[in-house]
């Protein structure tokens, strides 16, 4: 399969952006200025990038507590993200949400939930609205293996299949829920792969392979957009960092250093860059330039966020209700 250069470059750009933003957050996290529990998605960048490469600006996504990557891949505003982490009025959620509650309606992102599984029915309901409004948009739901423990996933898939909703269920299996390994919570393959393909096409892909994610989600988005119903994709990946906070805050004893290092060698960005260089789809110089561009955008975002004003205390009760 051949891919347009533009697509390959976008996949690389998005993954690099997500990685660099995470690293930048991490490097400043111990300054204690971002007083919000960050859940980094280092090592999982290919999932958000590969899926969102198919989405249009007005398509919807639903996201979760580990949602920086989804937000950025969907085109969420970087400055508003960083300002939110700093608890600023100019943050995407005006400093009311923090890292786990991002929003950018202009990019089709209507709010991420930190209740594991909480975004699944919401994304399904968005799919129902799309269908009722006879639109050609799609709703993509990102959730983790922890959310696949929750009954609401079954309920939502049942309804999406029943009503043939334009929903793409993306199970981002990073193998851990806090410190609980998936083997303590589920037996082998997710039970949703056992459904007949006519009801729910499903696929397991290497979540660290951007093109594998891209290929599978392309079919799913096409199916949803043409009114044929939902799909289910499991992207097998790995959470390189701990559950929350930066590298130095991860606890030891629940996984081996060797396991982390093995997965570290399967970095989705390094392997993708190598492949592009080998196929002469990009040059070292182009990568270097992209890196510079991203770093400068990140620097701008942090400068913007740090000098921005926090919310005024007298606005404490604002927005409980829409007037």
């Amino acid at each position: 399969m051949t891919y347009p250069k533009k697509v390959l470059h976008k996949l690389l750009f998005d993954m690099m952006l997500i990685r660099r933003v995470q690293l930048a957050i991490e490097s400043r996290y111990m300054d204690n200025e971002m007083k919000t529990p960050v859940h980094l998605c280092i090592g999982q960048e290919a999932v958000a990038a590969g899926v969102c490469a198919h989405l249009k600006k007005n398509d919807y996504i639903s996201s979760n507590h580990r949602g920086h990557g989804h937000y950025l891949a969907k085109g969420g505003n970087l400055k508003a993200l960083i300002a939110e982490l700093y608890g600023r009025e100019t943050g995407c959620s005006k400093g009311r949400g923090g890292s786990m509650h991002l929003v950018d309606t202009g990019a089709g992102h209507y709010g991420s939930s930190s209740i594991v599984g909480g975004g699944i029915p919401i994304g399904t309901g968005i799919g129902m609205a799309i269908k009722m409004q006879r639109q050609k948009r799609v709703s993509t739901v990102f959730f983790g293996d922890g959310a696949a423990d929750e009954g609401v996933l079954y309920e939502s898939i049942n309804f999406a299949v029943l009503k043939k909703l334009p929903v793409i269920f993306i199970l981002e299996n990073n193998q851990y829920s806090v410190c609980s390994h998936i083997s303590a919570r589920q037996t082998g393959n997710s039970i949703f792969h056992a459904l007949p393909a006519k009801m729910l096409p499903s696929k397991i892909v290497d979540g660290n392979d951007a093109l594998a994610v891209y290929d599978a989600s392309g079919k799913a988005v096409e199916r949803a957009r043409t009114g044929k119903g939902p799909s289910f994709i499991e992207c097998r990946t790995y959470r390189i960092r701990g559950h929350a906070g930066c590298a130095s805050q991860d606890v030891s004893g629940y996984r081996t250093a060797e396991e982390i290092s093995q997965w570290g060698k399967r970095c989705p960005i390094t392997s993708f860059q190598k492949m592009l260089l080998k196929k002469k789809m990009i040059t070292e110089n182009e990568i270097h330039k992209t890196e510079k561009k991203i770093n400068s955008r990140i620097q701008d975002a942090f400068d913007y966020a740090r000098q921005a004003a926090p919310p005024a205390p007298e606005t404490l009760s604002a927005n409980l209700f829409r007037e």
Partner: protein
Amino acid sequence: MLTSENKIMIHEPDFFRECGACKRVIGYPEAIREALQLAMQNDRRVFIMGQGVDDPYGMFGATKDLHREFGRERVFDTPLSEGALTGISVGAALAGMRPVYFHNRPDFLLLAMDQLVNHAAKWSYMFGGAVHVPMVVWACIGRGWGSAAQHSQALQGLFMHIPGLKLLMPSTCHDAKGLMLAAIDDENPVLIIDHRLNFNTTGLVPSGPYTVPIGRGIVRRPGRDVTVVAVSHLVTDAFHAAQDVSSQGIEAEIIDPRTLRPLDEELILASVAKTGRLIIADCGWKTGGVTAEIGALVAEKGFAYLKAPIMRLASPDLPTPAAGNLEEAFYVGRNDIRKAMIEIVR
């Protein structure tokens, strides 16, 4: 009066209503149905869902046959999945629709708490107002015929605790329609908790569209001696109790808050300022419930008005029993309110 189902209907008492010269009498379920019909005629975004909304019962008549007029895409049966379906309503609302989600009992709302409390109630605030969730959730408290502990819970106290949810409890046919239309018009998640006993009444209802303002209570009967704040069907009981004691020279003022959140604090405080005595009657539990909250409000902001301790009438802190005689012992009603009125003025 008999309805089409040959059920005996009782006309509402002749207390104060806001229907002007209206003489049109219809049943309580028809009043809600009329609100839904008008809302759906006027706004393509409005739809109705819930288990059994299109079945022959039609949610005690409130949604009966609406699918025939509006089609099954706008009035549809759902899987029981209360948790997911509530989230699906939230999602549909975020994407520009106006869901009205029916449950025949509040007990089942406990299966939807995550989406109601963690999501719907938080979405506007948590995202700094970037998004909002205009949805209506409706449920009807059961009572009698041995409904027992899982089919008769009056959970308004639980929901009154949650910032970000509006909570309505109508007591008249007029308000059932007007509050439903107000709830559908509202840009936020609104929970309507109704009561099966209300469904046995008929009352005055204008035929056109109108709304009852959310957050405004009403004085159903003026009186100088004691204020009675009563909720849902207990408004009728309180009114009858007030008529009962009127011959003994006790004039009770009956307040129907209609919406528990936001609560019309001014109306309650102004009445207590006048009477100096307060009885609160609710069909939910006593501890941490509606009577506790309203009692605390008056103790905090109206203590100087009080001539006697506040009296609270509520269900005992027990699951509802099934046996008829135990049921009778469990519920508060007209007699309890009457006794309290006599006692408090003594």
